[in-house]
């Protein structure tokens, strides 16, 4: 591009250098995109092209619906296959960004007659978008610290394990596109801030809209940007550019966000968004103040300030009072549970067991930081320091970003994902600056040594002369040869300063040749270590689809495909309208893979409903049968890992069922299932535990496998070994016993004498009595 602007032959050299540099960085960016895409394909190569885990199955199912029925049907979709008998309005409760994106890609490809299945498109959406995300990172970092840092940050982001864990091929989840949207929104914000262009401000609002469509994490943006604006105002960095960057975003962004059905009026009603409105007011006040300051004399201005401040204080006080009253009138203070647990990390475990029961909502451990961002954790401080020299609007933003994301990641392990881009940007800046210093020093030292052979006398007296002379001679050659962006940047940086100072600085940055070379080597080794770790993480740690398990044994690879085995069984051998009850973890998979109606699923919107299932699982057989029968359930599915040692099975999750069930139905008491505070299933287990449905369904006839009933997950013999089921019958157990499906036996014929009694019982056991939070079934 630069070449096009320079027709004059005199400037060809520089122009060529620019053009070459541009081509090179485009090439590098393309390669980064390829890297980001291909490092995420381990899951396809090692396993297969399949949707992973739980939530992606739901998204996949929604995408299938979308591609089959079109967008209007999608908005109006009432899903009667889940939350039976309540159902769920999918169109209004789902973040549609991901599904619309994949649906659009699918539609586009199919209109070109490229016959890719919806599944294939869904599987590869995440890798494609991670390539986009690394390009967005390049743009963002380039705005902050130049293209050298941009390229470094993009490379780092392309393979940061934290992001890989959420975006391997098949991990078709909201985060896959949301991280791209997040970074891109930040880029456009910084771009607007740097240029003051309304065009970019509009794009920014659109990118924000896309982010709102994609992920609930958009509240991070709508709180971080106001914080930055506030920071700029407080530190006296207010400018019209800041106004242009912020005001349109709030107005357009809020209007657009309200268009997304799942957000709707929440965009103006919930506390998560209040910060943005508050700052919106503040920035207008500040803008007004600056304007008035411009047209008044300093004396007049002082008078005006005292007047306005006193009135303003009163108004503010009233507004704040109203706001506080409004917020206080709602039970949770207008904050959603997940957001509250962000602010108060102990909130969820205290009040909402259903949030606390999800492992990704737990605070992370230190090793998980090392696992997920690896050496970046050490580079980040260096990057922060680099951002402070000099501190600009944009670099203050990334500093704020990293600080906030470190806090949030400390609260919830899932938000590590938000930290990863920030860490990459910071580390990219740090690496690029370090390389600048070291290569600069090497260049300088080499130039000096070559000159000193020429001209021995001058070196004593005027080393600086040689430095600059050598630099122009040598430097230009090197730059021409390598067209390195970094070399250029190095010279640009001091250009902003007074020249004397810059010279002093340049001198300070010069390191001895050997030190620089060793440091460079060490940096490269650090990078190599990071690459090795990332590839290992991508290949080994984060590629398992979790619906297929494998284990390496002496006689080769062993595949445990039990989940799909039983979902396939359900799908082909039960009636299409049968209801299947299981713990909510398996709800999405059951609806997507088995196409059967479930009672609860991973969209945990109705706590009472989940508590009902939890209660049934924790109740004795008869009571459980009655609960399930009242819910029209025909099959009960439990996941059992005791035979092969699969640890995340229902018995290990059972205490959460008890807690969640007990939270709504107080007759389920956690203490009844614990012996001296210990959760046991062996002979010391409590009778309540040994008689509950979950225990019975998991261990039914288990003892006959080895004669002892040795549970390989709990590493103990089970407590109650021989028992019969009276109200349930086994209809299917998968090959490794991981999934067991039971059918509710039909109700027994009534015996004449008991008929009356039963009748009175059923009337009292209606749904109405449930609202009183009593146990209607015992």
């Amino acid at each position: 591009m630069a070449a096009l602007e320079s027709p004059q032959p005199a400037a060809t050299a520089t122009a060529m250098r620019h053009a070459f540099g541009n081509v090179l960085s485009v090439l590098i960016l393309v390669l980064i995109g390829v890297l980001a895409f291909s490092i995420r394909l381990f899951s396809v190569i090692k396993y297969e092209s399949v949707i992973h885990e739980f939530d992606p199955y739901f998204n996949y199912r929604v995408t299938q619906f979308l591609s089959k029925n079109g967008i209007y049907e999608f908005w109006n979709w009432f899903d009667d296959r889940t939350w039976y008998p309540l159902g769920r309005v999918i169109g209004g409760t789902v973040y549609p960004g991901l599904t619309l994106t994949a649906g659009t890609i699918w539609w586009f490809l199919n209109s070109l007659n490229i016959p890719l299945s919806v599944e294939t498109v869904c599987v590869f959406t995440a890798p494609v978008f991670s390539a986009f995300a690394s390009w967005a990172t390049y743009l963002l970092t380039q705005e902050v610290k130049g293209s050298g840092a941009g390229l470094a940050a993009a490379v780092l982001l392309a393979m940061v394990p934290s992001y890989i864990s959420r975006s391997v091929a098949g991990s078709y989840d909201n985060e896959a596109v949301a991280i791209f949207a997040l970074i891109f929104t930040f880029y456009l914000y910084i771009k607007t801030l740097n240029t003051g262009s309304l065009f970019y401000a509009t794009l920014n609002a659109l990118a924000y809209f896309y982010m709102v469509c994609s992920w609930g994490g958009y509240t991070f943006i709508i709180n971080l940007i106001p914080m930055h604006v506030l920071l700029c105002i407080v530190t006296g960095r207010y400018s019209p550019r800041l106004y242009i960057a912020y005001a349109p975003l709030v107005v357009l962004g809020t209007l657009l966000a309200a268009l997304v059905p799942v957000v709707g009026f929440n965009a103006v009603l919930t506390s998560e968004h209040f910060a943005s409105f508050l700052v919106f007011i503040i920035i207008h006040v500040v803008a007004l103040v600056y304007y008035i300051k411009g047209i008044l004399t300093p004396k007049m201005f002082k008078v005006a300030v005292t007047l306005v401040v006193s009135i303003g204080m009163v108004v503010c006080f009233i507004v704040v009072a109203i706001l506080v009253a409004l917020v206080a009138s709602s039970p949770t203070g207008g904050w959603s549970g997940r957001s509250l647990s962000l602010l108060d990390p102990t909130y969820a475990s205290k009040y909402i067991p259903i949030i606390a029961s999800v492992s990704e909502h737990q605070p992370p451990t230190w090793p998980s930081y090392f696992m997920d961002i690896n050496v970046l954790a050490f580079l980040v401080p260096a990057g922060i320091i680099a951002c402070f020299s000099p501190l600009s609007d944009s670099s203050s933003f990334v500093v704020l970003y990293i600080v906030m994301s470190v806090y949030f990641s400390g609260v919830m392990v899932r938000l590590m994902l938000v930290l990863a881009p920030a860490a990459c940007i910071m580390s990219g800046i740090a690496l690029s600056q370090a390389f600048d210093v070291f290569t600069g020093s090497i260049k300088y030292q080499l130039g000096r040594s070559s000159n000193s052979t020429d001209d021995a006398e001058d070196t004593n007296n005027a080393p600086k002369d040689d430095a600059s002379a050598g630099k122009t001679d040598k430097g230009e050659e090197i730059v021409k040869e390598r067209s390195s962006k970094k070399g250029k940047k190095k010279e640009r940086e001091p250009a902003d300063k007074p020249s004397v100072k810059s010279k002093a600085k340049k001198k300070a940055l010069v390191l001895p040749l050997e030190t620089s070379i060793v440091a460079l080597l060490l940096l490269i080794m650090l990078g190599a270590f990071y690459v090795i770790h990332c590839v290992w993480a991508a290949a080994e740690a984060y590629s398992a689809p979790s619906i297929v398990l494998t284990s390496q044994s002496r006689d080769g690879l062993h595949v445990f495909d039990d989940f799909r085995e039983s979902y396939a069984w359900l799908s082909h051998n039960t009636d299409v309208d049968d209801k299947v009850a299981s713990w909510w973890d398996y709800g999405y998979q059951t609806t997507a893979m088995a196409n059967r109606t479930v009672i609860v699923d991973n969209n945990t919107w109705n706590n009472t409903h989940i508590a009902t299932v939890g209660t049934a699982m924790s109740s004795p057989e008869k009571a459980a049968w009655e609960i399930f029968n009242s819910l029209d359930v025909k099959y009960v599915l439990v996941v059992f890992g005791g035979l092969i040692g699969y640890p995340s099975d229902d018995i290990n999750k059972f205490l959460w069922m008890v807690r969640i069930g007990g939270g709504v139905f107080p007759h389920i008491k956690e203490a009844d299932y614990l012996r001296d505070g210990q959760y046991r299933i062996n002979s010391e287990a409590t009778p309540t535990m040994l008689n509950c449905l979950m225990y019975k369904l998991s261990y039914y006839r288990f003892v006959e496998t080895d004669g002892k009933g040795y549970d390989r997950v709990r590493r103990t013999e089970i407590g109650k070994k021989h028992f019969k089921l009276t109200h349930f019958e086994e209809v299917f157990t998968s090959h490794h016993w991981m999934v067991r499906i039971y059918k509710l036996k039909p109700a027994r014929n009534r015996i004449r004498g008991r008929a009356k009694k039963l009748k009175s019982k059923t009337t009292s056991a209606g749904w109405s009595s449930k609202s009183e939070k009593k146990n209607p079934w015992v």
Partner: protein
Amino acid sequence: MKQSSVVVDLLLLLLTISVLTTPAFSDLVLSKVERRIDVTSQFARVTKSLKVVNPGSESVSEFMLTFPKFLGNNLAYLSVKTKRPLANLSVKKADPKGIPDSISVYSVALPKTLSKGDSLTLEVVATFTNVLQPFPEKITQGEIHLVMLQESAQYLSPYTVESQSLSIKLPNARIESYSKLENTKLQGSELKYGPYKNLPPFSYSPIVVHFESKAAFAVAEKLVREIEVSHWGNVQVTEHYNVVHRGAQLKGEFSRLDFQARPNPRGVSAFRHLLARLPPRAHSIYYRDDIGNISTSEMQSDSKKTELLIEPRFPLFGGWKTFFTIGYGLPLSDFLFASEGKRFVNISFGSPMIDLVTEKIIVQVVLPEGSKDISVTTPFAVKQSQEIKYSHLDIAGRPVVVLEKNNVVPDHNQHIQVYYKFSNINLLSEPLMLISGFFVLFITCIIYTRADFSISKSSPTYLAKLQWDEVVATLQEVQSIIQKCLAAHDKLEASLRDLSRTGDIQTCKAARKSTDSLLKDLSKELKPLLAFLQSSPSASHISPKVEELVVKEKELQEKLMAKHTTVVEGYEKKSSGRDIENRIASQQQKIIALRQEIEDLLEFIDEI
């Protein structure tokens, strides 16, 4: 219930037969009938050899094959051959008068008319599905699978049969019971009836055999085979199976424990595997279903065949269903041939699965885009239609020949031929389309970056842009001039260094003179450029910088000249090197500072 209704049917049949008088067919005599029924798999395969003699005076060109209706309804495959000469005879369903409804009749066109005294041996192969009735109809997991076969010990024929025999090949297992008539023998797993002599037309004596069957009662309720022919060298076959176990239904629990119990597993009625015998050189084989790959399959291949042993996700008990897809690629050269200017695909019709009964098969042969004059030959009657399929960047779409048939058994695994015309030029259309697509894309990019798309040539922004372009060009010129100046300075410095080495004052002076004139020329060149920059409004924010740059450069020039003069003078005066250095030291400092500033300014301008 079904069982008893069949029995009633049989009785009715007997009644009707006994009262029947059949003058129309009595001309021919079957001198010898040998029947063999193979029930080792899930269907009954009947091979008969009939020796037909025409004792009458009229010559006969048609032969009637009859089956009891309950068999005839389940007839999947029927072929009639003669051994000498070896020929397939055409068979069609007939409905002659005077035959009761309980009998199905097929008429066979004889290869030559049988005149008086002629004889002919017919080899008949008939395959019946659904004739092995599970009895009991529902069994538990532990029970064995018992089925029942009903037939007639005597050959049902409109002709007089002189001598006949029947043998039933049973699977090598338990036999619960069988009808004992005269001349009944059980030898191992083979049950023999007959020989019976001189029976009148429409003789019938029902027999029932009740035995254990270990065969897989795998029935594909629907099978869609898509055969996609690509002239790039591949035939891609994709088969979608909806398989059900049509044996006795499972009653009660399914216990994995019992199923996997080591010493005596219970669940023999279920089948775990299906064996597919694919053509040799099959490659890229996959086996999956709606929800992903199924990892339980094994493949063995040699030069004659490729055997694929697939295991459904779960064992299939009676009444259980499953769905899966297998796909494989075949080398085109094995299946595509040319004849008389046409090409034809020669590929087998039915499923490659062994002993699989298909209730409904849909074969879709997808021909390359641009194929014309499509015709199909099949060895048996099928329902034909044509469709269009769009795939892989198609524009016109690919013609698809759709063949449908119900009740297909392995005997139908014969080759069909699809003839079509195709020109190889069409092969290039898609690559060319892609190439031109990318070409157009790049051309558009080039045009977009090169061309001027502003709507109004007089709009202020456009003018500003033009002006700015000019400013940039000027700036670059200024830069290049300054660079030249700097180069001249370097030359001057170099001459000084030469001086210090050689002490040649004259060359040094000459160098200075030439540099002087060069610098003057350059400053002359600079003037109009500077004037332009000052006048141009869009350069207002840069021109001070540029001016500063020029001033600094001037200053540097002067300083350098001064330094040069000092040094040269020093040499002329033969002062010591140290002396000269001391004198120029201060100048040197300034020069370096100036040079640095100039470079910074240049960088700054460069950024713009």
